């Protein structure tokens, strides 16, 4: 694949690993959080942790939209899908995410609810047009990357004067969550993770640009390097972070210059700001209520807001107490620290949301990492 394969060259990756090893100060450790699930996935898939020196550690962050959606919101989706007049459209990843008491959209569908997986918001419009007698609801999730397609969906629904269409908006924003991770109280119950720098999101940054991360460099004194999703991108970003730490610099640098600019995609930002506004707060699995981290439809689009249309309210439901997703999403624990990992909880039967999406830390480790664990055990 052009513009992807070039960034997967093994010899160059190993050369970069050597550069990182020779520049990393053996007297100290480097702890970098990759915020984005896409990066978590790439680290596991390409085994990057195996070629990094021991004192350069990657901490997996909460940037997987499926993983951070709280169980209460899944319950809300299920309640909607159970209404006979509703066709609920979702991105496929959502189907197996556990709500409360093991409920999921997949199970709702099996017992007759009309839940349809869509690849694109364009499909949701088509379904609404084809089913004028039904209420078609799109359950929108995702970070800044996925928000503009939902904005366009609503603009189109308005243009087409669709009467039977609405959206549940669960879109969340990256910077408030990064801030939450840095600011969370250092108590025994919610431990704070020590971070020396961030590998910044690739595709989120295509939309919002690098500018929104400048506060982390300036006010929190943390280097941020925006990185592409290919293995060479990540290795270069890690080298850039090591250099910033070594030189006591806290800057926002852009490794992914082939797609990301300081200002992002102006058209996408405008589409989003036309349709959405900030919620005062939004609940994240693992992080709790995060101020100004979520979006909702503006008042002028209330007729497309399923939460208004169906008078939905969100109930906070506790996660399975044995599931460590919360601590894992904060970077405080690793998937193997969870007692259920790989026994009760697998991608086939996920207990927590981190096991559902391929970008979730538990699923990524299950798919690519556990064999490595075994090899390491055997080697030692």
């Amino acid at each position, binding site marked *: 694949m052009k513009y992807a394969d070039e960034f997967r060259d093994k010899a160059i990756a190993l050369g970069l690993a*050597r*550069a990182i090893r020779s520049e990393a100060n053996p007297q100290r450790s480097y702890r970098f959080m990759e915020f984005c699930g*896409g990066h978590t996935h790439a680290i596991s898939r390409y085994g990057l942790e195996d070629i990094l020196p021991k004192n350069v550690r990657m901490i997996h962050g909460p940037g997987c*939209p499926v993983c951070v959606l709280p169980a209460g919101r899944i319950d809300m989706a299920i309640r909607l899908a159970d209404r006979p007049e509703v066709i609920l459209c979702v991105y496929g990843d959502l189907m197996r995410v556990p709500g409360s008491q093991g409920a999921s959209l997949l199970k709702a569908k099996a017992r007759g609810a009309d839940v349809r997986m869509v690849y694109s918001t364009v499909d949701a419009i088509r379904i609404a047009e084809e089913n004028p007698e039904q209420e078609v609801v799109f359950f929108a999730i995702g970070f800044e990357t996925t928000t503009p*397609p939902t904005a366009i969906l609503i603009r189109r629904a308005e243009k087409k004067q669709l009467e039977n269409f609405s959206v549940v908006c669960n879109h969340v924003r990256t910077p408030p969550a990064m801030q939450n991770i840095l600011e969370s109280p250092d108590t025994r119950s919610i431990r704070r993770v020590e971070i020396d720098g961030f590998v910044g999101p690739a595709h989120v940054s295509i939309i919002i640009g690098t500018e929104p991360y400048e506060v982390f460099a300036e006010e929190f004194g943390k280097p941020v390097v925006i990185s592409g999703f290919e293995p060479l991108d990540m290795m*270069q970003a890690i080298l850039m972070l090591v250099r910033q730490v070594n030189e006591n610099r806290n800057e926002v640098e852009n490794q992914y*210059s082939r797609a990301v600019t300081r200002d992002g*995609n102006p058209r996408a930002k405008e589409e989003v700001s036309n349709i959405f506004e900030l919620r005062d707060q939004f609940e994240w699995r693992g992080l709790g209520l995060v101020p100004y981290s979520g979006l909702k439809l503006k008042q002028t689009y209330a007729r497309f807001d399923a939460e208004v249309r169906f008078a939905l309210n969100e109930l906070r439901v506790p996660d399975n107490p044995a599931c460590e997703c919360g601590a894992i999403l904060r970077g405080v624990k690793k998937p193997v620290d969870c007692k259920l990992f790989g026994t009760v909880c697998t991608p086939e039967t996920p207990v927590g949301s981190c096991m559902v999406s391929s970008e979730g830390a538990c699923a990524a480790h299950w798919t690519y990492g556990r064999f490595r664990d075994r090899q390491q055990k055997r080697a030692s």
Partner: protein
Amino acid sequence: MCLAIPAEVTKLLPDEMAVVSIDGVTKEISVALIEDLAVGDYVIIHVGYALTKIDPDEVRRTLELLRELSTEGQGAMQ
């Protein structure tokens, strides 16, 4: 679901749509988020939308830099 892939634009369609080719496999996507798109451009697609054009000059620059950094790394270990 955040995974996104590069694809070549092969045909512009009405209604802010376009046909792209991913290693020979064609797909219809929305290009509502992109300005000044032309056939032959490469874009990054995510959930059926093009998010941005890929800048070929920056690709070249990054690949050159990657090669340089990688050889420096090799030199450092010898």
